[in-house]
């Protein structure tokens, strides 16, 4: 095993040219199929000339017109971006933030107190399985139309994975460590800060990842319903009512890019925050 590992390492350190070659080849292998697919799609849509399936180049052009045709001083974001993207992201960020705060705080409490968990468990389990979109009509009645209702919908959908995962993580704290903390007379705050939160953190991140994609979905869903006047979801319904398929495709592609970006950012944060954890695991 060592003999196999040794040459591989020496190649990596000694010959950067070979590394670059391998990197390029790897990238080609990864991205070429996607490029070919897009090219085929382009050719097929141009040949078919169907209004339902616009070619990718036109979609990209429409995206540029709608959102990225602004002056350089605004980082090329146009005013359309301010009307569509900013409100949506604001709602999503607010909803996600509220669900993380509530979910982590309540989750830590429930995870450390078996009694409280026993009282609330049936209610929590039931709330968890309700499909979140069904609550949106309820929130339309209960809250003011617009941002308030949308944020409430996002929170109702995204809070459960955070809460239940945090409770799970907080419950699984090593009992020897808890006993040690007791011996050293750590205050409750110190116990939470230095013991419970760190050991629940991997679970919390697992919940966060679910909450992130759920909040994107619910943000769009809440904006698709009547009573919205801006945001990407509104742009979608608006385009649908005008049968403007190019705009619909553009919004979908943009949402895909946003979803990918959010996920990448969260993964990077997770890797940074949990690097100690993986190191400890390996050792």
């Amino acid at each position, binding site marked *: 095993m060592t003999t196999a590992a040794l040459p591989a390492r020496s190649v990596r350190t000694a010959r950067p040219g070979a590394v670059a070659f391998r990197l390029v080849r790897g990238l080609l292998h990864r991205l070429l199929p996607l490029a070919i697919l897009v090219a085929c799609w382009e050719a097929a849509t141009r040949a078919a000339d169907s209004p339902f399936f616009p070619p990718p180049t036109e979609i990209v052009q429409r995206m540029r017109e709608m959102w990225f045709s602004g002056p350089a001083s605004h980082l090329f974001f146009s005013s359309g971006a301010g009307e569509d993207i900013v409100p949506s992201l604001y709602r999503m960020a607010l909803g996600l933030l509220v669900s993380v705060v509530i979910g982590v705080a309540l989750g830590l409490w429930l995870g450390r107190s078996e009694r409280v968990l026993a009282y609330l468990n049936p209610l929590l389990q039931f709330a968890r399985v309700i499909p979140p979109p*069904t609550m949106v009509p309820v929130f339309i009645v209960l809250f003011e139309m617009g941002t308030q209702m949308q944020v409430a919908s996002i929170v109702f959908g995204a809070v459960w994975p955070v809460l239940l995962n945090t409770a799970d993580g907080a419950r699984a704290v090593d009992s020897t460590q808890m006993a040690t903390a007791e011996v050293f007379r750590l205050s409750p705050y110190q116990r939470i800060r230095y013991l419970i939160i760190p050991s629940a953190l991997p679970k919390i991140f697992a919940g966060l990842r679910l909450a992130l994609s759920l909040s994107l979905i619910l943000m769009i869903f809440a904006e698709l319903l009547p009573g919205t006047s801006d945001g990407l979801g509104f742009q979608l319904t608006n385009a649908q009512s005008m049968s403007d398929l190019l705009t619909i495709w553009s919004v979908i592609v943009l949402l895909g890019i946003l979803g990918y970006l959010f996920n990448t950012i969260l993964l990077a944060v997770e890797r940074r925050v949990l690097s100690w954890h993986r190191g400890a695991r390996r050792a």
Partner: protein
Amino acid sequence: MADQTTPPRGLSRPGKWARGAVGVAALFLASEILGRAGIVDRSYLPPASSITARAVELFGDTDFLFNVRVTLTAWALGLLIAIAIAVPLGLLLGSVPAVNTAVRAIVEFLRPIPSVALIPLAGLLLGSGLSMEVPLIVYASCWPILFNTMYGLNDVDPTAKETLRTFGFSRIQILLRVSLPSAAPFIATGVRLAASIALILAVGTEILSGFGDGLGMFIAQAGTVPDGTVDVLAGTVWAGCIGLIIDSVLVQGENRAFRWHKAQRSGAS
């Protein structure tokens, strides 16, 4: 030793049940008091008792049951098609690394697109009803099954595969005899996740589609009627119950079918 040093924790099973019942009762009581004392407008937020009564009443309502049946049909059809697509695809991607790297970028590009954003497009392309609902459900529920299948194939014991290879079994045979059975528990977990996503999509598209049948339609229409909040919430309770039943049936099924898997796990760790 650990048992002696740690204080006795863990409630008994009846204790948990009793506390759970107390929790539910407390919620009922609180909503009752809030409603009757006039702190909350009853037409906005009806007390839990009247929601429950309405939910039970709906059980005898043939129109409502028809709506539930429509939703469940879309759900089952979508989930079955998703399984039929995602499991073979996952087996292919999970067992042939070259295909995996090639398709990876396409998958990474498609996966983050939130499925509800496709509803307006599907509405224009496919009209309404089952023909629009089912493809959306399939799209959304394919992902967890696909990724769990691939993940499960990663986890297969290499010694078992090598053993069959030395005995001259072909790749396909190894895949079917070793890899598929040992990935099955992971696939089942993926199906369970997909089942709840499919329900979300089924109800969600119905709420948005504007006309037609289904549980989501029932909820959306009740939301537009004054005093319809009881119906909205009763419908929501039903959606929750359906979700709960599906989830627990699948969990039970997993536990029963893959008892060997759990046993293997605890033996290994």
